[in-house]
């Protein structure tokens, strides 16, 4: 009965217009699946048995990408409720927890972010332990390092948005170091030497930390800056580099294996 229904479904014009091949039960059709689907064709048709063994790859790179997608979806949902303005940011987060029925989107978003930091580190650990950064994959390892930093920045910029004590002080501690940036931070090496007639060129009102925070302290302008960085700037950079990263995995010979 079910088999008959399945056969009928696969015979319809609609089904055939979407999947241009028979059921993936033969080697030919299993190849067709991979070649005719834009998402699946990120993969090769065939792979080394060692390269897809779970105890070899731990699935960590794939999970990192999946968690990025989870963060994108839940992040968009959160953007419907959240306004990055000091007067309302905290109340919006409060409303998410108190008023939205079955509201666990913020929870999924936050724990997903922590999980992504964990999986990206474990992915790097696996790539190192299997020596997969060695030629011809040197460049892709470098791309991966930048992606790891972007992941940390994504998590860090998002940390401020709930606008509670935890957020404000973690960002205060984290951005204090920018004051000490050589030359462009006002407490950093060499900054006090940049003077004209005794007037400091680099001071707390124009240094790199001021540019980052939009003020001398974490405040209204900081919230908007971090919101834009968190929702637009860093994700776009990460997406571009991810495209390069995945492309190079394929071009550099797929998941690594003994030469």
């Amino acid at each position, binding site marked *: 009965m079910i088999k008959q229904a399945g056969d009928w479904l696969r015979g319809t014009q609609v089904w055939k217009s979407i999947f241009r091949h028979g059921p993936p039960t033969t080697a030919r059709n*299993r*190849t067709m*699946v991979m070649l005719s689907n834009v998402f*699946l064709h990120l*993969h*090769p*048709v*065939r792979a*080394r048995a*060692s390269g*897809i063994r*779970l105890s070899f790859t731990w699935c960590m790179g*794939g*999970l990192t990408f999946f968690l990025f997608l*989870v963060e994108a979806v839940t992040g968009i949902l959160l953007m419907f409720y959240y306004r990055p303005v000091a007067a309302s940011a*905290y109340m919006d987060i409060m409303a998410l*927890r108190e008023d939205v029925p079955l509201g*666990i989107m*913020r*929870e*999924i978003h936050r*724990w997903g972010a*922590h999980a992504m*930091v*964990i999986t990206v*580190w*474990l992915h790097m*650990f*696996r790539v190192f332990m*299997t*020596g*997969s*950064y*060695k*030629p011809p994959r*040197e460049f892709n390892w470098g791309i991966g*390092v930048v992606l790891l*930093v972007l992941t*940390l920045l994504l*998590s*860090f910029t998002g940390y401020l948005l709930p*606008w*509670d*004590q*935890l957020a404000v*002080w*973690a960002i*205060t*501690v984290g951005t*204090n*170091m*920018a004051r*000490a*940036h*050589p030359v462009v931070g006002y407490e950093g*090496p*060499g900054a006090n*030497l940049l003077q004209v007639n005794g007037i400091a060129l680099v001071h707390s009102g124009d240094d790199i930390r001021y540019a980052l925070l939009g003020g001398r302290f974490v405040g209204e302008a900081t919230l908007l800056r971090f919101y834009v960085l968190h929702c637009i700037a860093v994700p776009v950079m990460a997406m571009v580099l991810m495209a390069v990263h995945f492309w190079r995995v394929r071009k550099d010979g797929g998941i*690594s*294996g003994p030469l």
Partner: protein
Amino acid sequence: MYLFDQAINFVTSPSVFFFVSIALFLASIEFAHVWTKPKVAGGIAVALVAFVAYASTKHQVAETLSKPDNLPIVIIVALLGFLYWLSMRQAVVNDDRVAAGEPVKEAAEKNRKVLVWPDLVYTELIAMVLCVVVLVAWSLLIRAPLEEPANIGRTPNPAKAPWYFLGLQEILVYFDPWWAGVGLPGTIMMGLIAIPYVDRNPKGNGYYTLRERKAAITVFCFGFFILWLLLAFIGTFLRGPGWNFFGLFEDWDHNFVAELNNVNLSQIIWVDLLGQREPKFWLAREMWGFLAVGFYMGVLPVLIAMTVGKKLFRELGALRFGVVVNLALLMAALPLKMVLRWGLNLKYLVYLPEIQTNI
């Protein structure tokens, strides 16, 4: 139990904990063939779980763990413990196969190609489903933290960075902010990117092995486990109010004031040792620090190239060797500075308020 608790507090005091961890880590590399045996590793895992269960009955540990943002550090330590075992186990097995003249496991699988549909696609699907299940369960069980509204006038004590940056905040205790906050993170990033270009060992590409790349694995794991994760762990569990150290089972005393009398190298040498006043001119005052840093970063690499690093120097050439040795020395500088702080109360080697630069 009282004695046990006191012993734990002693072991988790900073200097002891740091060196016990380094010793344990080096032992885990040296004796990988012993502890990675499934029975031994299983025993260690049971003991650790029992310890965590016991520790979480302690007031301060429970307090720290009750902050949901502290959970990820526990999760990554647990996961990494398992995955470190998994990779080392496979490395040991492969090394034994090579010693017996057989190809490594991955090489045996190399020529067997499988279709990605269904073998890989289904693995990925299951991984994604499990990931969603874990995330939803985590989200239903633990609410995302939300403290009082932001108040720039009220500083919490201790004010901590997010857990993944706590290693840097810990380094800030020992180094000037320009180095801990800007120089070192940049160096770590550039150093990581440089790894494939300075590691010229062609072996161990695409399979687990320890024997064929022991030095590389030791250095990388030392940086990752000790200098990054251990410091983040210390920052989470052992740093209390006033950024003071507390033993793992000690309650955080908000009135505790540590005696802080850190001094600079110029004072130690000019005043304490030579019994003179510090010279007025900055170059003369800081000459000992400049000599020390210059020797460490400038002369020591040359000495290494001429003695213990002779073979490495020949293999890598001057440029690659210089990068490797300088990165390694910078890595070693962190524990060295910690020792100098704990042993001599040394604040800075070079103290130059004239140009706002300390080392």
